[in-house]
C-alpha cells in the first residue's frame, strides 16, 4: 500500500512539473507580456517601467528559475490586474466555482441515476420514452443560448429571479438550473445504456429466482454493476463544469466571480501560479489512479492474482 501511494505521489509530481514548464513557456509564446497587458497607447517609458517592475528584462531562463523558486516557497506572485496576491484572487473565484460545480454535480448525478435506472427497467415504455426525449433535448441544447434565454424569460420578463449577483437562495437557482441541463441529459443516457446491459445479465436472473423485489434488483443488484461508465463520464463532466461555468458567468453575471475569472483567463495571464486546471486534474485521476474504480468493481482489486 505504501509503495502504491508513493508511486502515485511520484507520478503526480512528474505531471505537475510538466505542467509548470508548459504554463510558463506557453504563456511567453503569446507575445511580449508588457505589450499585451498595457493598452496600445502606452508610452515606451510605461512599457520599460512595467518590464523593470516585473523582471521581464531578465533572460527567460532566469525568470523561469525565479518562478519555480517562488513556487517552492508557496509564493504564487501578484495578480497583474488587481495588484494583490494571485492566490487570493484564485481562491476567491475558485470558492464560487467549486460551490456551483459541487452542487450541480451532486444534483445531476442523483437525478440522472434515478431516472435513467427507472427508464431502463422497462425499455420502450412511456416513462422510458419521456425520459429519453427530455435527456436528448437537454444534451443537445447549447447551454450558452439556454443561459441567455433563461435570463430573458425568468429574470427580465417574469422578474422571478435576479439577473446577477449573490446573496440569497434565489441567486443560485438560475445558474444551477442552466448548468444542470446538459450533463443531466448526457449522463442519463449513459446510465440508461449501462443499466440496459446489466439488466440482461445472468445475475439478474438469479436475483429474480431468489425472489428479490424490483426496486432492489434495480438499485442494489444492477446499479453497482452499471456504475463504471457512469463514473467515468461524471468525472469528465465535473471537470468540464469549470469550463462551462466560466462561459455562463458571462451571461449570468455573478459579478465578483466574474472579475476574478477574467483575471485568470486574460490573454497575457501572468499571475505566477501554476494553475491546476480542474479538467486536467480529474482526467489525470481517471487515467492515473484506477484505484478508485475498485470501489465499484472488486474484480480489479488484485490484478496480480488474476490469470
Amino acid at each position: 500500500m505504501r509503495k502504491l501511494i508513493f508511486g502515485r505521489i511520484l507520478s503526480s509530481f512528474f505531471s505537475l512539473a510538466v505542467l509548470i514548464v508548459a504554463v510558463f513557456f506557453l504563456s511567453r509564446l503569446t507575445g511580449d507580456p508588457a505589450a499585451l497587458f498595457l493598452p496600445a497607447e502606452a508610452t515606451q517609458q510605461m512599457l520599460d517601467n512595467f518590464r523593470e517592475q516585473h523582471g521581464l528584462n531578465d533572460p527567460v531562463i532566469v525568470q523561469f528559475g525565479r518562478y519555480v523558486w517562488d513556487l517552492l516557497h508557496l509564493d504564487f506572485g501578484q495578480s497583474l490586474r488587481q495588484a494583490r496576491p494571485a492566490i487570493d484572487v484564485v481562491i476567491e473565484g475558485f470558492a464560487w466555482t467549486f460551490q456551483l460545480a459541487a452542487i450541480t454535480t451532486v444534483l445531476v448525478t442523483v437525478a440522472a441515476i434515478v431516472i435513467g435506472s427507472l427508464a431502463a427497467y422497462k425499455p420502450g415504455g412511456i416513462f422510458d420514452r419521456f425520459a429519453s426525449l427530455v435527456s436528448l433535448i437537454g444534451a443537445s441544447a447549447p447551454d450558452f443560448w439556454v443561459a441567455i434565454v433563461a435570463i430573458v424569460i425568468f429574470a427580465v420578463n417574469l422578474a422571478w429571479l435576479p439577473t446577477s449577483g449573490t446573496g440569497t437562495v434565489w441567486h443560485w437557482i438560475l445558474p444551477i438550473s442552466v448548468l444542470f441541463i446538459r450533463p443531466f441529459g448526457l449522463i442519463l443516457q449513459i446510465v440508461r445504456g449501462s443499466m440496459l446491459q446489466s439488466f440482461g445479465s445472468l445475475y439478474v436472473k438469479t436475483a429474480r429466482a431468489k425472489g428479490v423485489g424490483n426496486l432492489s434488483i434495480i438499485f442494489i443488484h444492477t446499479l453497482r454493476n452499471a456504475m463504471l461508465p457512469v463514473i467515468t463520464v461524471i468525472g469528465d463532466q465535473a471537470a468540464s463544469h469549470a469550463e462551462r461555468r466560466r462561459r455562463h458567468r458571462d451571461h449570468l453575471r455573478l459579478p465578483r466571480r466574474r472579475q476574478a475569472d477574467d483575471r485568470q483567463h486574460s490573454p497575457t495571464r501572468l499571475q505566477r501560479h501554476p494553475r491546476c486546471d480542474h479538467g486536467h486534474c480529474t482526467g489525470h485521476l481517471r487515467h492515473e489512479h484506477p484505484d478508485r474504480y475498485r470501489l465499484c468493481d472488486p474484480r480489479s482489486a488484485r490484478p496480480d492474482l488474476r490469470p
Partner: protein
Amino acid sequence: MAEHLLDVKNLSVQFHTAGGIVKAVRNISWHLDRGETLAILGESGSGKSVSASAIMNLIDMPPGEITSGEVLFEGRNLLTMPTSERRAINGRRIAMIFQDPLGHLNPVYTVGWQLIETMRIHGIDKAAAEKRALELFTRVGLPQPEAAMHKYPHQFSGGQRQRVMIAMALAMKPDIVIADEPTTALDVTVQAEVLALLAELQRETGMGLLLITHDLGVVAEVADRVVVMNSGEIVETGTPQEVYHNPQHPYTKKLIGAAPGKGAIHDPQGAGKPLLEVKQLVKTYGAFKALKGVSFNLQPGETLAVVGESGSGKSTVARCLLRLEEADSGEAFWKGRDLISMPRKELYGLRRQIQMVFQDPTQSLNPRMSVYDLISEAWVIHPEILPKPKWKERVHELLAQVGLSPEHAKRYPHQFSGGQRQRIAIARALALEPQLIICDEAVSALDVSIQAQVIALLDKLRQELKIAFIFIAHDLPVVRDFADHVMVMKSGEIVEIGTAREIFGNPKQDYTRRLLAAGLDPDPEVQHTRRQEREALPA
C-alpha cells in the same frame, strides 16, 4: 389421483422473434413428487429449460408468451398468481441452480452477502441469517467457510462457485430445487462431487429435484425418472433403465446411439520417425508453473489425446507449440527443426503445416466474412498453395469433404448451427493442407449427436489425408473412440502417457483411475457399478 408437488399441464410457450414466432415448448406435461429426482433430457433448442423458466417466472414477456397450460404447485396455479406471491415462493419454496455460476453470481457483492440476502428477503433476521449462512457454507463443503463469507465470486474455483449456488438455493429449505445444467461447466471429478452433494442434500431434506441436462451420464447417475425432449415436445418418459435399454422413440434411440465411448479402440500404426518431438517444455506465468517439463512424441497420421482438468496445462502445450505463447524453455522438433527457437519469419511459413481448431466456432469465425472468404483467406496469405482461378472449385471440394454443400459458400457463419460452424472451421484448417491439426476442446461445446458426427468426420479425414491430430479434451469417452495415444495431464505435468488401450484398459496411476471413475456412463447399471468403484477408490 394423488396430488403431485409440482404438476405442469399442457404448457405451451412461444417467442416472438424477428424471424417469426418460435414455439419453444408445445403442450408438455410432467410432474414432480417430494423426494424425487426428475431429469429433463434434451439437446440445445429442445425447450428443456423453458418450462423451468416458466415455473420461476423468468421468461421475459414480451418477447415470450405462455399460450396455454398451467403449473400447479401444491394445487395452486403459479401462472395466474399475483407477482408478489410468486416472489414469495421463488427462493423460499422453489429455488434454482444455474449452469454458469460465475455469470449467475453478482460480481460486485461478496458471496456471503448474496447468501444472506436470500434469507433476508424472505423474512429471516440478520443474526439468524448469518448463522445459517455459515452452516450452509460448511455443509456444502467450502474450504474455510468463515473467510469464504467475505470473498467475491471471482475468488473461487468453478466447483466452489457451484457450491455457493447450491448453498443459496438451499438457504430456505425449499420443497423443490431446479438445477439447470448444474455440472456442464465443471470438470468430471468436480461434476461427480457436485452431483453427490445434491443427492446427499436431497436425502436430508426430502426436496424434489428437477434436473435439466443434455448428458445421459448425469441422468444415469442421479435421476429417478427422465423426460426426453426434442424440438419443444416430450418424446419419451420413463425410468433411466427403461429409456436407456428400451428406447421407444427414434430420437431417443439416436441420442443413445450417439453417446461416445462405445466404439472400437484404435491401435497405433507402429513407430517410425516422429513428426513432432517435444522435450522438456516449461512455461510459467509469474509464480504459477503452467508446464513443468512436458515431453512427448507424435507419429505422422497419429492422434494424440491430451486429457486433463481445467488448469492442468493442456491448452498451454498447444499454445506454446504454435508460439501463441512463448515457452520459457524446452524444445519441440518438427521434422528436425526446433519450433521453440525458430525465428519468427521461418515460423510464419511453417504455420501452414500446423493448424488449429478452437472450442467455440461462433467466436473463432469472423462474423462479417462469408464462408468462401473464410476458407479462401488462407490462400490469400499463402498464395503458393493454389492459383486464384482454382479457389472456387477447391472451396466447394472442401465443403463437400466436411459434409456441407457448395451453396453454403455464399452464406455467413450466423446462418449455420454450432456443428456446421465447427465443420467450417475444420474446412478452413484443411485449406492449408496441414500435416497436424490441433483441436482444442473442438467438440466440447457441441450437442452429443453433433459431437459424434464431428468426431466421425475427423476420423475420416485422418484416414483419407493422413493428418496427425493433437486432440485436447476433458471428456474421456470422446477420446476413447478417436485417439491412438492418450496423455493424461495434471498441474502442468504428465501423469501417464500410453496407447488408448493401455490407458482405458489398464490405467497405472491413481489419478487416471480417478478420472476414469469420475466420468459418467450413460448406462444406468454400468454407472451404478462405476459409482461403487469410485467410492472405493482412495481419495
